């Protein structure tokens, strides 16, 4: 493109130069006809002979550039002004002789270099003599030899016309013709003044006979005709020249404008690569190589745009509703117009891909497929199919939670964030995938509960295949504390699924009040899952008596975050998670958490007691036992 633009600039500059160049020939003829007004005979009598010669020679042929011709005439003005027909003939014969004797070049040589042949040479060689005579003629007219050589050139030009133009008579050679006209004008001016419009000798005119007058008038008319014919010819030539010059200039201006337009078109192509470029301006450029180069640019530029359009067309054509219906029909689906409309939010190729992937994981039910296609996209489906294929989730879990396949849904967002967290913590995602509810849980809650499991050192109890939906439920810490304090720590370690039944932990408290122990985890699960418990769950609270609230010390002031040293309780530690104080199991993390959110108490030991008891479910005896034990150890002072 750059080289093309340079070429165009070059052309524009060349045209500009041409436009600036004066048309010397035209200017000469303009001046000529300004000086010698056409159609007015008396003007012609004032005509400069060299002007006429130059005009006549220039009007005939362009073999010698006008400037050179003008220079020859002007530099040999004396010679041409003095030239008559005899001299013309002599010169012409000399020229012809030189040509016939093949010594023209030798003559040029001598004239240009100023080598005058010696007398001896002249005597020996007639050609040398001829050349010598020529050189003497130059001396006669005081014309430098070099300039005189140019006169030969004029005759070369003049006489070449004789051989070049068919039927061109010798008498019509431009120089000769000019000399002839000049002679006629001179003769007219001298002899026939009485009958011209310029001068009249009254005495001469008085004594002329009528027949003489008539003869003279006829002769005068003949001369006038001849002169006017010649001048007409020159005039026509001038007009033609003017016309050609005008049309050349017009053409050059037009070419210049065209180059400008094409240049603009090319710049537009560079600036706006997405816009189609026109070619009509290029077709008007005069330079063929530039035309081809520019057409090549336009062709390539436009083709790139069209090919993009073609891609768009192909895509849209592919995504036409009828194509969707055909594709869906291949999978046994007959969607309504509404359903097709929503499915078309995905490109056809994506829909095809989604269907193929869903088939791979055995999702084939039409209603389910339609539901997924309307709400999901390829990336989401691929993610989930990948999870199924890796065994992280099952197809049935996916079918039961179709909302997760909607990438704009909260379920999807939660699932992806939760899986990411699981990966960060280097946990097996299958720990959470038996029940997809776990992975769909609110992310913040999921994260918090995972941290809680960590705090209780229960992460290692996560297993593949368990229902870990507890990970997405509130109050997980409270549930863990309840199981620990009811004495089911080992059962919890063995089976985290117990936490899924925290809403029925009241049953375990009830069994505690009945002094009924449950030893195995299977029995625990039976108690928590049976529909035939001793008391309806809605009524259990009426049977539960918790003595703790009656023993809790009362806070006295606002929140303080000061930590308390719990090392005094170390002697009561019975496991990594629990204390046993006076035979009563207390969760260690519960005590720490209670301390972190404690209010101010009258005594530090009140604060400690509050932290130990708050959140527990104990009988009067149990509370008394705790208080007594702590008092005995001087950790708590009874009031």
């Amino acid at each position, binding site marked *: 493109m750059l080289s093309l633009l340079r070429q165009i600039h070059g052309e524009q500059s060349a045209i500009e130069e041409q436009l600036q160049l004066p048309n010397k020939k035209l200017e000469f003829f303009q001046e000529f006809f300004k000086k010698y007004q056409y159609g007015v005979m008396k003007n012609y009598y004032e005509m400069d002979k060299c002007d006429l010669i130059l005009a006549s020679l220039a009007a005939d042929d362009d073999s010698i550039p006008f400037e050179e011709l003008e220079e020859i005439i002007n530099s040999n003005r004396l010679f041409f002004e003095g030239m008559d027909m005899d001299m013309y003939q002599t010169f012409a014969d000399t020229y012809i002789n030189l040509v016939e004797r093949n010594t023209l070049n030798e003559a040029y040589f001598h004239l240009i270099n100023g080598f005058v042949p010696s007398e001896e040479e002249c005597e020996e060689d007639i050609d040398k003599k001829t050349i010598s005579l020529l050189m003497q003629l130059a001396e006669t007219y005081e014309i430098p030899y070099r300039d005189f050589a140019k006169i030969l050139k004029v005759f070369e030009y003049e006489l070449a016309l004789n051989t070049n133009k068919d039927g061109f008579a010798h008498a019509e050679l431009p120089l000769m013709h000019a000399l002839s006209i000049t002679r006629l004008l001179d003769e007219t001016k001298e002899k026939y003044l009485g009958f011209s419009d310029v001068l009249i000798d009254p005495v001469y005119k008085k004594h002329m006979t009528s027949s003489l007058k008539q003869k003279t008038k006829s002769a005068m008319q003949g001369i006038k005709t001849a002169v006017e014919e010649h001048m007409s010819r020159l005039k026509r030539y001038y007009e033609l020249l003017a016309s050609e010059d005008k049309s050349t200039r017009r053409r050059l201006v037009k070419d210049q404008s065209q180059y400008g337009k094409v240049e603009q078109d090319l710049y537009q192509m560079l600036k706006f690569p997405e816009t189609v470029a026109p070619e009509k301006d290029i077709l008007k450029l005069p330079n063929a190589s530039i035309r081809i180069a520019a057409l090549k640019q336009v062709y390539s530029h436009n*083709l790139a745009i069209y090919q993009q359009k073609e891609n768009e067309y192909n895509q*849209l054509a592919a995504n036409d509703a009828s194509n969707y219906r055909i594709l869906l029909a291949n999978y046994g689906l007959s969607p309504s117009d509404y359903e097709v409309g929503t499915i078309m939010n995905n490109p056809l190729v994506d829909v095809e891909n989604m269907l193929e992937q869903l088939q791979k994981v055995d999702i084939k039910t039409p209603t389910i497929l339609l539901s997924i296609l309307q*709400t999901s996209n390829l990336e989401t489906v691929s993610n989930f199919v990948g999870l199924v294929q890796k065994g992280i989730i099952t197809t049935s879990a996916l079918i*039961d939670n179709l909302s997760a396949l909607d990438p704009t849904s909260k379920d999807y967002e939660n699932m992806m964030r939760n899986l990411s967290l699981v990966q960060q913590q280097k946990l097996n995602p299958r720990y959470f995938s038996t029940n997809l509810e776990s992975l769909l849980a609110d992310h913040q809650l999921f994260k918090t509960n995972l941290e809680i499991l960590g705090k209780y050192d229960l992460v290692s109890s996560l297993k593949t295949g368990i229902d870990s939906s507890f990970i997405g439920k509130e109050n997980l810490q409270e549930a863990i504390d309840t199981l620990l304090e009811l004495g089911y720590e080992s059962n919890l370690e063995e089976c985290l699924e117990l936490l899924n039944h925290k809403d029925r932990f009241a049953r375990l408290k009830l069994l505690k009040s*009945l002094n009924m122990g449950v030893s195995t985890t299977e029995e625990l699960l039976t108690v928590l899952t049976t529909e035939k418990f001793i008391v309806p769950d809605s009524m259990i609270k009426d049977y539960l008596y918790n003595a703790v609230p009656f023993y809790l010390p009362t806070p006295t002031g606002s929140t303080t975050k000061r930590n308390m040293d719990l090392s005094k309780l170390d002697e009561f530690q019975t496991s990594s998670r629990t204390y046993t104080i006076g035979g009563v199991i207390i969760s260690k993390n519960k005590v720490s958490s209670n301390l972190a959110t404690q209010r101010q108490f009258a005594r530090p030991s009140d604060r400690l007691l509050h932290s130990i008891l708050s959140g527990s479910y104990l009988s009067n005896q149990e509370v008394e036992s705790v208080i007594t034990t702590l008092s005995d150890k001087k950790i708590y002072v009874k009031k």
Partner: protein
Amino acid sequence: MEYIVLNPDEATEEQFISTIDANNRTARLMRSEIDKLRRVAASAKKTKKPIIEEEPAEQKEVIQQVDEDFEHEIEYYLSLIKEITLENIDEEITSALPSRKHYQYTRILNRLKLESIRNLKEIKDLLQEEGVSLEDLPDFQAEYSLELKKIALISKALEPKQAEEEQAEAKQNNLIFVPTTGGDIRILDEIDAIPAEYYDRFNGLFQSIKDGTFKNVQRFSGNSDLAGLCEVKDFKVRVIFVRLNHDSYAVISAFIKKSDNDKAYRTSTIKKYYDYQNVESSLVSNLENEEFMQLQRDYEQELFRKLSTSEKAPVLQKKGGEA
């Protein structure tokens, strides 16, 4: 619609011109087609995505359906236990409890124990609210002690026993047959009128009264005309009875409840209850009369003969598990 592709390095000017023209025409056609397709696609895109409204996942922690049959049974046993005092608790508690054979024996006893624990809780709550101690309220003290005793005895009853002990403790309640005003035994007459296909069920119900398992027992309570009556049931089959003492039960009526016409059922039962009430005192007073009791045993034999079972026929157990 295809675009012409040239070799730009070899193509002539004429070829460029004709190709550019042809490609322009093709592009115009294609633009028109693209516009059409865009319009179709745009109208399709206006269709909004449906919102998947999934039914809420079944809650794992389903609100427990109240086991009405069980609650009725508990009400029955509670009604018996409520009559017990500190003075007669040792004698009466065993008869107030279901037979060990009852398939929900442990569940029922634990519930009864819980009821006592609840009573204790209520007393404690009251004491806390009032800010007094048990010693300050002698009435509550007696009640407190009674509940503690009940708990202790029920706990003892929950202890596993050897098979011989269980056998020895097996109940054998007496069926006392209520006569009609005409002197006939209503139950026997009613049985004769019942299709034989229901006899197995009736047999099971009578046996449950005898062995103290009281199948699906329910006590009519409240202010109704039937207050005090009890029934055992098996699907549509009913036997109405009243407890006379710790081991004797007056069987008043046996019928099939064919419709949900409560009014007709109530009316009939009320009449039979009135008839019973007319003879109640007589029946109670004859419980110590050996001749009377022998007669009842004869009637019982006759009953079971009619039902084509013997006294030792296996009791039909209700299917279910204990808590």
